[in-house]
């Protein structure tokens, strides 16, 4: 569980952010996205989510953990979403847990939710045809050694097929 010390400023949630998260959590409890489970903690600002690989995909039967950290001005700013150890072997997921997925960065919209992020991530996993790390994994992970947040990376979104 090494992915806690990212450089993001740990500012408390704004009132709007806290309200919205509370509502998202309530909605999640009533209607959780299929294949995900929110692990109950005492923090509203950091969610730990269990991910279950979908049946009939490369990840069937496997379990992963997502760590979602919310910024002060969520949902105007995107949350920071990373896989905790050990992240799935996937061409868009780095071995340090960083995920190359546009909606987490440039294409974030405040009308998205944790639930919609989860569905996107599961869809990304499910459409994978090969279990492999990204080709630049070593280099990227080395560059992130000082605890850089994936939100500080200038992502270049390779393709939307996988």
């Amino acid at each position, binding site marked *: 569980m090494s992915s806690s010390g990212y450089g993001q400023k740990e500012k408390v949630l704004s009132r*709007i952010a806290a309200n*919205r998260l509370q*509502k*998202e959590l309530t*909605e999640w409890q009533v209607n959780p996205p299929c294949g995900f489970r929110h692990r109950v903690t005492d923090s509203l600002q950091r969610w730990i989510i269990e991910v279950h690989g979908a049946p009939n995909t490369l990840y069937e039967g496997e379990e992963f953990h997502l760590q979602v950290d919310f910024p002060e001005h969520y949902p*105007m700013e995107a949350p920071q979403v990373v896989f905790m150890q050990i992240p799935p072997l996937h061409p868009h997921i780095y071995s340090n847990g960083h995920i190359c997925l546009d909606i987490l960065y440039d294409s974030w919209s*405040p*009308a*998205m939710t944790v639930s919609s992020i989860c569905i996107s991530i599961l869809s990304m996993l499910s459409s994978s045809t090969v279990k492999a790390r990204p080709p630049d994994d070593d280099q990227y992970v080395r560059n992130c050694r000082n605890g850089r947040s994936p939100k500080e990376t200038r992502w270049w979104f390779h393709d939307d097929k996988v």
Partner: protein
Amino acid sequence: MESEDEMQDAWAGTSDDEFQNEEEEDEDSDALASDDEDDESDYGFGFNDFQLSTRRPQTIFTVLSEQDIRQRQDEAVATITNFLSISPADAGVLLRHFKWSVSKVNDEWFADEERVRANVGLLEKPATSKRKNVKEMTCQICFEVHPFEKMKEPRCGHYFCEICWTGYIHTAINDGPGCLTLRCADPSCGAAIGEDMVLGLVSKEDQQKYMRYLLRSYVEDNRKVKWCPAPGCEYAVEYQAGVGSYDLVCKCGFSFCWNCREEAHRPVDCETVNKWILKNCAESENMNWILANSKPCPKCKRPIEKNQGCMHITCTPPCKFEFCWLCLGAWTDHGERTGGFYACNRYETAKQEGVYDEAERRREMAKNSLERYTHYYERWATNESSRSKALADLQLMQSVKVDKLSDIQCQPVSQLKFVTDAWLQIVECRRVLKWTYAYGYYLPENEQTKRQFFEYSQGEAEAGLERLHQCAEKELQTFLEGDSPNSSFNDFRTKLAGLTSVTRTYFENLVRALESNLSDVDISKGAVKSSNSSKASGSSKARGGRPKSGSTRSGGSSRSGEEMAHWSCEHCTYVNTTATSSNVCIICGYPRS
């Protein structure tokens, strides 16, 4: 992508504006002409006119203030609003998408309106009708329920509450200029968020930021407009038409090259300047030692800080040794009056000739390449500091000294214009001279004839400028010190004005020769001389292509008439007036031949 024609077409719709510009240009060239033919005309234009009058630009630029830019943006929006019968906010969205090109908006819109609407996010029919009876709604961002009046949508039917819209736009504005092409907050929707919605929601501070980005987009998206690179300057410069030099003077007084946005560097081209600046960065470590601001007096060894502009240094009493700052040699070897000649610009002379044994040769060669560079760099840098010193002196002259001089010598300020003229000329000459060293550094060693001619001309230029600088700096001092009018003030006036005019002509010719890469040198040595002295014919040829500068041409012809009443001293090249001295040069005392 965008052709020049097209850019010019961009303003076809705003013909008033165009006419206005042309009028302004005419006024400018009139001002130029009057400077050329009549030195006594009222100044008050500062650097602008001076620079223009020495450059004779074939390239036309317009300096735009923020207000001008805003006005043009407003005009473009008004034109599109009219032509396309759409709202000003939609017109703004279109113009920003098509980089403020009115013609491009028109072309694309009338070619395929539907595709343009889809690309920029302007939805045709508002999707609001079905919501008529709704009293309250849940905002899909904050998940709160709001009364319907508090909900907003950018004509796509994606309602969010005002607070969330404000937060969304605020975040975009603080992320940068991307806020100008903001789309609906719904991830699947591309509806454009127009200026009206943005400004209607956000705080004053955000409004200002947004308007700032809007203003900047006009310059930064447009290849024909660039910001003046001077720190703190808020003007932009638009390229209008023409070819040739890109040097221009912004209204802030900073002169720069429009093409590479470095400081003005005529007669050297952008590529050379780029190489030179890069080289200076790379060599700066080696340069530190030579850049030390002081040198020891070659005679008494006391450290001397150069605090005046010219290279002729006199050590403080009791030593009073006069020497050249560049080579530290005695000034008696430099000035014509003492029988010497100015040669500090020549690398060959500066290099000590010695007999090398073979073992030392390779070490010498490595050292020589640095020494060669050092030679040019030092002279480049020294002229630059001389230039900034002269600029400061000029400002002091304009703000304080001219008034003082006017008091002491009982002369109206309008009669003292020749002093500021001299300083303006010095500033410009120092700038040119500085860049001739970059030119010299890159002039191939094997082009012997060109090198010789270049070094000769540069040396002459430098010597002439030293004469002028010395006169404007030191001789003027005597007239500032007394408390009653000095009878020789009129002689001083004649001398300084004469030196200014001689130096200006010389530098103009030098710049022209270097810009043509000394092409005359190849033909024959004789050709060089004739082109160098036939100023009047050369300049009128250069202007001939532009019909509008007719008034400027008359300036040239009046000057050639003026030359009848002058004669050049063969010894020092000073142009004497027949009226004041018909037989003996007033500068060096040599008889007229």
